[in-house]
């Protein structure tokens, strides 16, 4: 704000207004981030102190919460929960990237009878509440003997059921210059090779966005995991955290919040690394509709 090039005349006025603006923004930011700050400081307090001590600074600094969190809950170590969550998130990323890029290319570029109908179905599923499919899906998985396995949480991603990502990729492919496809066709490429050699390499930004959003939504997923995972050995971080809720002993609060911090870490890291892409992802899939 103190650039030497600013004319002296403006110095008094404009920085003052912009200072007010910064103060307002910082204040909003502090209010919004306060719960996260609270979480972090609570994870370093002793169980009894978490509710009683309103100050963010712990009276008794208790980093031991983290080693207790690592020991886990109900015989499930943190690493097992973490590993299970990570496995599901990676499968979800792989499935979405693969199936949604295939579908996105077909919707955006190929011309064939039925495409219009399929596309309307895809757009309609964007708005469909998952509850309408929930019970028959559960019954189907039960009949196939898949309850208590990870399959009900993995298969849907490989079948492009998340229309959000298909739509994201359709929008992205549409924005690529058609000359590239046509040049490939003139060079004798069919749709498969055009996809593989031309479109897929160019899709990278959209696939990165898909990866990040798939990872985060799988990581934060609770409902499906709650329904489909019955064996505690297969529990994820979210389900493990939920086990703390049933514990009324306040000594469990410290480790609970330590584990909560650790559970948020991957999402926070993704956010810090890719925040620009995330924000742009929200814009493209939201606006260009």
């Amino acid at each position, binding site marked *: 704000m103190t650039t030497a090039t600013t004319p002296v005349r403006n110095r008094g006025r404009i920085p003052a207004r912009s200072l007010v603006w910064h103060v307002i923004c910082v204040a909003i930011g502090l209010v919004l981030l306060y719960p*996260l700050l609270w*979480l972090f400081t609570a994870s370093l307090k002793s169980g009894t102190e978490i509710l009683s001590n309103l100050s963010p600074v712990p009276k008794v600094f208790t980093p031991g919460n983290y080693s207790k969190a690592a020991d886990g809950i109900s015989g499930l170590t943190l690493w097992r929960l973490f590993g299970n969550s990570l496995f599901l998130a990676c499968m979800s990323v792989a499935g979405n990237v693969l199936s949604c890029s*295939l579908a996105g290319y077909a919707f955006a570029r190929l011309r064939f009878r039925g495409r219009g109908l399929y596309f309307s179905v895809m757009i309609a599923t964007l708005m469909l509440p998952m*509850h309408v499919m929930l019970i028959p899906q559960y019954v189907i998985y039960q009949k196939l003997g898949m309850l208590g396995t990870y399959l009900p949480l993995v298969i849907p991603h490989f079948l492009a059921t998340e229309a959000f990502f298909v739509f994201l990729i359709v929008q992205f492919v549409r924005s690529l210059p058609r000359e590239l496809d046509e040049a490939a066709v003139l060079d004798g490429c069919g749709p498969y090779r055009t996809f593989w050699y031309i479109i897929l390499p160019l899709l990278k930004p959209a696939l990165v966005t898909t990866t990040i959003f798939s990872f985060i939504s799988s990581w934060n997923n609770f*409902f499906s995991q709650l329904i489909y995972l019955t064996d505690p050995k297969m529990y994820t971080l979210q389900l493990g955290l939920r086990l703390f809720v049933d514990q009324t002993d306040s000594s469990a609060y410290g480790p609970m919040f330590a584990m909560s911090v650790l*559970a948020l870490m991957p999402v926070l890291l993704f956010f810090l690394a890719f925040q620009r892409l*995330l924000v742009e992802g929200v814009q493209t899939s939201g606006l260009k*509709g």
Partner: protein
Amino acid sequence: MAQATAPPRPLPRPSGGTSVVKPPSRRRSSHLVAGHVFLAPWLIGAVVLTLGPMIISLYLSFTDYDLFSTPQWVGLANYRYMWEDDKFLTSAGVTLKFVLIGGPLKLVAALGVALLLNRASRGVGLYRAAFYAPSLLGASVSVALVWRSLFATGGLTDRSMSFFGWHVGGLTDNPDYAIYPLVLLTVWQFGAPMVIFLAGLKQIPRELYESASIDGAGRMRTFFSITLPMLSPVLFFNLVMEIIHSFQSFTSAFVISGGTGGPSNSTLFYSLYLYQQGFTNFHMGYAAAMAWLLLVVIAVVTYGVFRSARLWVFYGQDDA
């Protein structure tokens, strides 16, 4: 494969819309196969995991089904029972209240902050990112646990409100107020619609503001005569998405109430009650009926918003 029967056209030409010119029928038929190959995963998913289950769940909604015995046809009994089921009526009311209070508050916050951030200034990117962060984290169990403690009896809000002489105890323990921490949690996540508003604000042509200021329009006048109408398609989009999402809220209410929807069913969201009926009581038929009613309600509300859009959504005549 060589499609070069048509004479090669000159390369430099405006992009977009030109490919309509030459779809040779041979190429189209080859895409019929390729199109279905590329779409195969999606098609299987759409039939097996979406459309099929939708029809089955419509059928199940007319049956009595507990997952283990065969479904018994009961006609409209599930739907009729809803009107006698106090818990159902409560959960519908709670959800409606949540949608009607949380949705508008969230959108107003999103629009307000988007207006604040809509300027070229140092730090805009940082603030935008920071304000968006809660949208990514809000759905997690971790954050729900934080809320649970913040609003518990003896927690931060309880004691700060007591300090100001308002003794209601922990909001999450009081049936009259338990919904408000959940409303606050959804408003806290205003970042996602804010980002969409911001992108919309960037699309408004500057000339409109310039001519408005030449005409001597004040800030309020400019906002209501230019910003709001030009932004109405984005507002419309956000409104529809918000309605659809908030009708389906689950995790926060589940975690904060420990799965009960309490106290006194005051946070018994529709999806939470559906979950209880389907997966705790194994009233699968009733849960399927609830799901279909939810679909119909969301469809009707969305349709209503779409219809009303003619009155308040402004789509520019030529560009915009």
